């Protein structure tokens, strides 16, 4: 018991230290408003990548409509704060609950399907949500929902990103995470070993959708304006590239993918037009090459975590799931 406790405390101390350091840098203006905005975007993208990775990486279900759940969370939380004047945190939690409910609603029928059909149906669902929002005048339809109060600050983002990471690690390292992975490996064998495959898939899907909705809430209260078009298929593909580049089925991989693909374009903003204009072309070529030579992405299914560092042996020891019981 104590060994786990000791490691837990070390991790908490490190996290708090990093937070204080960042806060100090901001107050001193070393991290300016522009970089702060990038860090907030990185935080939101990390939560999105983690949530999609739970569905694609761990539960093995290729869901292509992830931006739709982000939209549900964004719009529901925006309605609560702007129209009903609810405080920030309850509003985004309600947004996440709505996202989870939408996940259940669409997951229940669709998760009986396999592979390609599931992918296209989730994609179809994404388009349906976009069209529905475009027809709801209450939220401004195609003209977008503006005048949302600014709540998302660096502090909230830091807290929620760390919480999201811990939540995913704990779900993945629990009985539920193992059931999900077993189902993604061989559904029939998992059922023979007493795992209710459908329930495991549905649970992974609901948690993933709720988290995406939560990220949507943070996004809405940071940008203060949301419109249906920004949650279309391109947004879903963007989140997919974070997970794919980082490594399908690796939690720290998703974090790495989200950080790199968010910071890179901003860091390159200064350099020549070539990269800027052909950015999407470079990304697509990169993915094709990646899928052929390194389908597991940068991190593969390895985990870079403090746990491995403390242990003897290499940082990237290759093993199936996360061994450490703690985040």
């Amino acid at each position: 018991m104590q060994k786990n406790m000791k490691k837990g405390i070390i991790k908490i101390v490190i996290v708090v230290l990093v937070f204080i350091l960042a806060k100090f840098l901001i107050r001193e203006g070393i991290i300016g408003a522009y970089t702060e905005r990038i860090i907030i975007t990185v935080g939101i993208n990390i939560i999105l990548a983690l949530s999609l990775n739970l569905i694609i990486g761990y539960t093995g279900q290729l869901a292509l409509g992830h931006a739709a759940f982000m939209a549900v969370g964004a719009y529901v939380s925006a309605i609560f704060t702007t129209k009903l004047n609810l405080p920030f945190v309850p509003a985004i939690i309600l947004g996440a609950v709505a996202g989870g409910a939408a996940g259940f609603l669409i997951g229940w029928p669709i998760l009986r399907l396999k592979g390609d059909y599931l992918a296209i149906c989730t994609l179809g669902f994404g388009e349906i949500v976009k069209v529905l929002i475009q027809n709801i005048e209450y939220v401004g339809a195609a003209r977008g929902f503006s005048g949302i109060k600014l709540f998302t600050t660096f502090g909230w983002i830091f807290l929620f990103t760390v919480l999201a990471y811990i939540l995913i690690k704990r779900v993945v390292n629990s009985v539920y995470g193992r059931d999900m992975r077993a189902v993604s490996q061989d559904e029939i064998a998992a059922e023979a070993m007493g795992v209710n495959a459908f329930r495991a898939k549905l649970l992974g899907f609901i948690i993933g959708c709720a988290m995406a909705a939560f990220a949507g809430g943070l996004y809405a209260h940071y940008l203060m304006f949301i419109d249906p078009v920004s949650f279309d298929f391109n947004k879903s593909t963007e989140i997919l590239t974070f997970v794919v580049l980082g490594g399908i089925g690796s939690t720290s991989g998703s974090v790495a993918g989200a950080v790199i693909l968010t910071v890179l374009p901003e860091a390159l903003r200064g350099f020549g037009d070539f990269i800027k204009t052909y950015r999407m072309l470079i990304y697509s070529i990169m993915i094709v090459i990646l899928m052929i030579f390194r389908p597991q992405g940068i991190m593969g299914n390895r985990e870079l975590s403090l746990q491995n560092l403390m242990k003897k042996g290499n940082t990237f020891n290759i093993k199936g799931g996360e061994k450490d019981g703690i985040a």
Partner: protein
Amino acid sequence: MKNRLKKVVALVGTMTLVMGMMTGCGSAAETATGTTASAATEAAAEGETIKIGAVVPLTGDVPALGESAKNGYQLAVDTMNANGGVLGKQVEIIFEDDENQPSKAPTVAQKLIAQDKVVGILGATNSKCSIPMGPICTQNKIPMVSPTSTNTKVTVEGGDYVFRACFIDPFQGEALANFAKDELGAQTAAVLYNMADDYSKGLAEAFMESYTAAGCSVVAEESYSTGESDFNAQLTNIKNENPDILVMTDFYSTVGLIAKQARTLGIEATFLGGDGWDSTDLVSIGGDAMEGAYYSVFYASDDTSEAVVNFKNSYAEAFDGKEADGYAALSYDAAMILMNAIENAGTTDSEKVVEALNSTDLDVVSGHVTYDESRNPIKPAIICTIKDGKAAYYTTVEPK
């Protein structure tokens, strides 16, 4: 033990690298005295140039508009610098690409303000980017002039630092409605718009509101979503109603397609539209179906007024013979309005520049500009028509 130590060092190394990368690309210019942005503008003023930021959609789904806007801004700054610049200093314009995405516009605006220390921002081109950008400029007390965003929310929700150089949807809708009723004597209208596009839907609603208020009737209201190319279903319903005019409030490429299908289906109504039609490609896609159509626009390319002719010539000269479209003209005007305000204010201090902007009284390419209390310009709308395959000036609708 050594092995573990090496690994810890590696992790700490990568952490600092990532932090460094982030702070590096962010703070290079920011390590000024950490003061708020507006005070920083004084510091910049002492420098040799006045920096103005411009947010344009260079990539994304409408790069053509971005290019016109960039050329318009550049031409205005070059002309201004040619005759002595502003407050005796040369003007330097810094372009940033918002990819026509609402999430990108505020980030690049923040970059221009925090990193490049601009004294004013031109843009964004489309309303959906200007709306989220407005509050950022107001928070940082940096004046913003959008050339072509017609959605009312841009100034209403943008805050006191947000201005625009073009008329707003309600005015354009009203102008079109009155023009249809008085000039064309049309009593019944059908409206076909892209319900997935904020500009198209906004203008359509504005038109319908004014048209019904003026006592005429909208006999058919049909819509479609982006990317669609078959409009026969909607057009057949419209043909059934046999309206006097068919109003299409979308961009030139879709309008050309609809017009062709409408004529093939045998719809004889006159076609009416908004500033989205303003492009040389309208006729190349629409062909002779566009003949005799009317559309409101910021500026008529064949207008004979001296300001327009000079602008067109210098534009063609600067950009190897390219023809200036409405987006280029309005971007040029927006830049002129901002620079003129800085000149009148005598300083780059934003409060004074905003005061100067509010009291703008300037002749620009798209007509005479003065601002009302919600910082929208009181400007005429120009109606053009397509006569034997070319856009021709028809009339001007003065604001009430």
